[in-house]
């Protein structure tokens, strides 16, 4: 290959002071990732041999087998150059080592590496694996007929469809907005596939449950401190932010309470869209991307703060985002309901925290899951964040009345719907709901 790429890399690294990761390079130059890795390696060699000019730093990806406490692990890690030899020595077998990134600055943590790749991947979302070395023949997007089939399965026959439709125009446009926005990150697959379909399905799903009307309105009104739709959104996030500071648990409460009502409608739109697998993948991506379990709730609060301009759109989108992350503790429920569409599969980091806090609620959830299926997903997540197991139950109950068979559920269900309908606009009211929940549960 000709050496023009060396000049390109030189320009990126030295003139623009960018971090050049192999993934970014492959997407920018349009080459296979292995080629990009080699390019970076050659560039490093050349620059190091010259031994002049600005110092370069590199990070490497090391993968190999290591033995800890008697069991063998396959370890893959991104390490700084100065730690490379130490990490290689610790491994029994080093399977692969390659250059991960080249940059002028000495990085103190790995966040900029992720940032660098984020925008590059976002722009090429549909073909971000075009140059990838990982292949799976089975991983193809669903065809439209399969998509429709999956959606039909997910949908409960819509009865009040026509009635609610006019009232939900805003919401549907809101949900279609979030789906349009989804390329903005983890939701990429969602958006690209289901923009229109989720819109329709969300309409249908929403209309089915009148309570969700009030819920959606509630969430909107709760967050709406001013008439201006944009300031609604930001007013809420600003409030949220203010509350974040003093107490994490309060924050969580606020988060989940404010998202609780919107959860229903948004989840429905999620469930109705075909990409359940996508949702799972997104969730797993989200959980991996987060990397810090304990920050999960904080992340959720921060996320909605900078999203979109229109209130409902942003609300629904932010709720949608949160919700995807939230079904972590339900991972145990997945086995029970194999056919439920939006069952979140992989949420490894975040569930730990919530799981510890609400072990009781987990068991209750799993027993209820059998009947709840997708509805369960709608609500439970938000509740995991809040203190107390009851919050989680609340999610289930309000969603699953179509299938609920247990008495206590139906009782609390009735309470839920009434309490939810009454609560408008204030977080305190939400908290009141929670306390009511506590009483009934």
């Amino acid at each position, binding site marked *: 290959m000709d050496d023009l790429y060396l000049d390109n890399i030189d320009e990126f690294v030295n003139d623009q*002071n960018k971090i050049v990761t192999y993934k970014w390079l492959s997407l920018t130059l349009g080459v296979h990732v292995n080629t990009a890795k080699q390019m970076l390696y050659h560039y490093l060699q050349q620059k190091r041999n010259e031994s002049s000019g600005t110092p370069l730093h590199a990070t490497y990806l090391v993968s190999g087998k290591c033995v800890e406490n008697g069991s063998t692990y396959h370890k893959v890690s991104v390490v700084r150059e100065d730690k490379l030899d130490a990490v290689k020595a610790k491994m029994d077998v080093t399977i692969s080592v390659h250059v991960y990134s080249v940059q002028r600055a000495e990085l*103190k943590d790995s*966040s900029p590496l*992720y*940032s660098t790749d984020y925008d590059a991947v976002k722009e090429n979302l549909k073909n971000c694996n075009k140059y990838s070395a990982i292949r799976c023949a089975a991983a193809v997007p669903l065809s439209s007929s399969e998509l429709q089939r999956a959606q039909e399965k997910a949908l409960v026959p819509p009865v009040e469809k026509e009635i609610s439709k006019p009232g939900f125009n805003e919401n549907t446009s809101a949900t279609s907005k979030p789906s349009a926005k989804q390329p903005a990150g983890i939701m990429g697959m969602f958006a690209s596939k289901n923009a229109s379909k989720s819109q329709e399905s969300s309409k249908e799903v929403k209309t089915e449950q009148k309570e969700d009307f009030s819920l959606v309105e509630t969430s909107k009104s709760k967050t709406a401190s001013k008439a201006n739709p944009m*300031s609604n959104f930001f007013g809420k*996030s*600003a409030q949220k932010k203010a509350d974040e500071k003093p107490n994490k648990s309060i924050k969580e409460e606020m988060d989940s309470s404010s998202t609780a009502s919107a959860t229903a409608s948004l989840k429905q739109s999620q469930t109705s869209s075909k990409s359940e697998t996508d949702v799972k993948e997104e969730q797993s991506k989200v959980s991996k991307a987060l990397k810090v379990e304990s920050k999960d709730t904080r992340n959720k609060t*921060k996320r909605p703060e900078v999203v*979109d301009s229109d209130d409902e759109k942003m609300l629904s989108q932010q709720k949608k985002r949160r919700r995807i992350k939230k079904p972590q503790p339900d991972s145990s429920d997945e086995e029970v309901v194999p056919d439920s569409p939006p069952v979140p599969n992989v949420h490894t980091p975040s569930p730990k925290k919530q799981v510890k806090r609400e072990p009781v609620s987990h068991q209750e959830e799993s027993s209820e899951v059998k009947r709840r299926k997708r509805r369960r997903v709608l609500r439970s997540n938000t509740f995991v964040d809040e203190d107390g197991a009851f919050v989680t139950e609340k999610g289930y109950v309000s969603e699953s009345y179509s299938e609920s068979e247990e008495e206590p559920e139906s009782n609390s269900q009735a309470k839920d719907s009434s309490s939810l309908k009454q609560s408008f606009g204030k977080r305190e009211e939400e908290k009141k709901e929670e306390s009511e929940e506590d009483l009934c549960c």
Partner: protein
Amino acid sequence: MATLTRQDLNFGQVVADILCEFLEVAIHLILYVREIYPSGIFQKRKKYNVPVQMSCHPELNQYIQDTLHCVKPLIQKNEAEKVVMVIMDKEHHPVERFVFEISQPPLLSISSETLLSHVEQLLRAMILKISVCDAVLDNNPPGCTFTLLVHTREAATRNMEKVQVIKDFPWIVADEQEVHMEEAKLIPLKTMTSDILKMQLYVEERTQKN
């Protein structure tokens, strides 16, 4: 989409909120990257869909939040020209000044549906640039401290002195030595232009730091 003007206070609040959130993240990140405080007090959190380092120290966080809380009304009325984070050595002589120059277009028109997503992308890029600013700056001497200054247009500060936005958090006119730095090198870091906000970040660095 609507065309909102500066007079629409709600929109001004929106911009001020975005900007103050960004400044908080940027300040924490600068503290982390320039090693003003030990890295142990920082933890990874998420903003604009990327991980950022934020401090856990309550008093530090409170100071930064109170400062930005007072700055917010100035930004809303477009009276804040620059927000400066000054890093000073042990003798309180500034060694670095991170200057965020802010300007808002007088007639804000939200013409694009993806406006905020675009702004998020731009802010993400600024955060990334702060992360790599090490490459263009010399190391700071140990024992540095920081302070936050706001340069306002016209006489906005007179109002601030009259009305204490936060109790027991007074603003004072900055010392001349903090505001001006001798032998300064100017290093531009990043510029962002969007419909609602224009921001430029550059660093004034003292030529000899030790």
